[in-house]
């Protein structure tokens, strides 16, 4: 049996190759990470050491792949007259693969190839997207460009620090903040269309629902998160960051005002997106409290943002957009619930390690967390392999609705 029947279907739209690669990579990365953590094997020598490898690859490998898939598909909905050609998409995928390989080999061949391929990937994406989003009347979607530019700048900072032998981790922590902003923006677009029944062929509710992702609240949330991330970059460990993190947590809770729309909230899709915001709020809350109460270890709280908010948001975006754009219609199947719960289990068990009395169980907690994470994305691969590699069921071509 051929695994991929049809490369022409696979490269017909951006979400297909990138969602597939991202879900595979999510498993690969955590598989190696848990083996390393439990001392079964060592990781390849890479720039910045194992922790930097883990964070960098989760963000610039896994998360960025999903965002590339999302934006190269959504661009057709944002601006109708342009898009990304098959060759351009293949080039993006190739650059992404080269970026991964070169980073894994950065201990051997040096960090220049990794820097070149990874920075080129983002720059090429910006070259492809910016003109049409800029020409769009009113420029409603330029915020995506700004976040990608931000990501590019931070990645430059990361490689600069690596080249000059300075600490690289602050850059990666700032990238987490920017990823949160990117997720908030992407989710605001998806949620508006989904909840108000504007997505073609998707009707979650019988009655009309009025949900507005209001820009002012979103802007406050983005502003506070950006402020905290920058402060953390400039003055790591400062008490000021604690208050800023609390401000970000409160701003996230404030964002939930838009979501309190009664019964429709309890639709599983809607509730999952709602839960992402709660995870972000609690992540920043615990980060703030840890900083203010002088707890040195805040990586536990950080995993509420990464494993929790980012993991769940990415999973929802991949399953929802994947179903919509392959023409299969939106269906909340039981395995989606299982995967969602698995991501929550992965988050909680990872966060618990930071709890003082749980330190001794850290090895088993990491194991539970990793297995749950891998389960969630394995289910995605199992149920989406045919959808992503096969032609769209309703015969449509490319990404177009």
């Amino acid at each position, binding site marked *: 049996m051929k695994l991929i029947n049809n490369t022409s279907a696979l490269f017909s739209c951006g979400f297909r190759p990138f969602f597939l690669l991202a879900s595979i990579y999510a498993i690969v990365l955590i598989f190696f990470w848990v083996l390393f953590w439990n001392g079964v094997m060592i990781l390849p020598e890479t720039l910045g050491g194992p922790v930097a490898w883990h964070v960098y690859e989760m963000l610039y490998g896994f998360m960025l792949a999903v965002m590339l898939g999302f934006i190269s598909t959504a661009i057709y909905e944002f601006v109708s007259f342009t898009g990304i050609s098959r060759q351009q998409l293949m080039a993006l995928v190739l650059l992404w693969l080269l970026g991964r390989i070169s980073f894994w080999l950065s201990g051997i061949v040096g960090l220049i190839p990794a820097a070149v391929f990874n920075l080129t990937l983002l720059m090429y994406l910006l070259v492809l997207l910016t003109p049409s989003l800029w020409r769009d009347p009113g420029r409603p979607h330029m915020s995506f460009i700004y976040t990608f530019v931000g990501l590019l700048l931070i990645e430059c900072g990361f490689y600069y620090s690596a080249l000059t032998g300075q600490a690289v981790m602050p850059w990666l922590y700032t990238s987490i903040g920017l990823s949160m902003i990117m997720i908030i923006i992407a989710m605001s677009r998806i949620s508006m269309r989904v909840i108000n029944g504007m997505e073609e062929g998707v009707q979650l509710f019988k009655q009309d629902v009025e949900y507005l992702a209001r820009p002012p609240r979103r802007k406050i949330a983005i502003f506070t998160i950006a402020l905290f991330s920058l402060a953390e970059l400039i003055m790591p460990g400062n008490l000021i960051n604690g*208050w800023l993190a609390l*401000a970000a947590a409160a*701003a996230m809770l404030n964002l939930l*005002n838009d979501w309190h729309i009664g019964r429709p909230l309890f639709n599983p899709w809607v509730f999952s997106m709602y839960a992402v915001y709660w995870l972000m709020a609690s992540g920043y809350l615990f980060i703030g409290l840890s900083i203010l109460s002088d707890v040195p270890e805040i990586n536990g709280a950080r995993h509420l943002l990464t494993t929790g908010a980012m993991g769940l948001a990415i999973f929802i975006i991949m399953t929802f957009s994947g179903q919509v754009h392959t023409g299969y219609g939106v269906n909340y199947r039981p395995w989606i619930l299982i995967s969602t719960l698995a991501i929550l289990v992965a988050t909680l068990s990872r966060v618990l390690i930071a709890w003082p009395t749980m330190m001794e169980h850290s090895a088993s907690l990491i194991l539970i967390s990793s297995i749950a994470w891998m389960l969630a994305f394995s289910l995605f691969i199992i149920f989406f392999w045919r959808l992503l590699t096969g032609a769209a069921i309703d015969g449509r071509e490319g990404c177009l609705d």
Partner: protein
Amino acid sequence: MNLLRLWLRDLPAYLWSGWGAISSLFLLLALWQWGNQVYGDLVFPAPLDAFIVLKKLLLTEQARTELLTTGWRAFAGFIISIIIGSVLGITAGLSVTASIMSRPIVTVLVGMPPIAWIVLALLWFGATDMTPIFTVTVACFPIVFVGALQGARTLDGSLKDMARAFKLPPYMIFLDVYLPHIISYLFPAWISALGMSWKIVVMAELLATSDGVGAALAVSRSHLDTSATMAWIVAVVGLLLIIEYLLLEPVKRQIERWRNE
């Protein structure tokens, strides 16, 4: 009764929208923390230190008495000023002559610095409760008066005609046609007056009395205890925030539901 029901119904959504305000306040605390890092603990104690001192203070019987005393004085002065200010303001506003005549007098009252009133009050009433109460009353009165005056002056003539055409009795003309309009001017004035009363009372106490928050501030100043000073400031401002956002703002929203949003 109806107002109370609506207030309770909209309260959860209103409280939740308070997270935006809380977020801003945290940013302010970050700024405060920064000030502390620039100027040092002695000059500008850190927020957490001030909160710890405040917690200790609030556990003592004495601090609670000071807060109650100050609260009572501010409240008494505030109530007197809103009663006199509202009644006189509406009366003056209903007559063109009276409103023209009262303008310069109000300007004088607004221009009079509160500190001058404190000195006068000290001479008249000595170090009694009356000094802060009086100062609060005269400082708040012009704000309320102007609000009431504006409200009464801007009554819509066309609605008056409508009321006459439908032969509404005088009590209905007042309650249904005049009052809601005037209230929409009065209420914001009351809120400003409340903030004003709270500030003035502390100042008056600092200079004129031996009890209350103002006096406690004077003591902490003489001890060069900046943490205690900040703690008292937090207590005073915190109480004002609670009264304004938990009590007055939701009521105002209910009263003004008819306005364009």
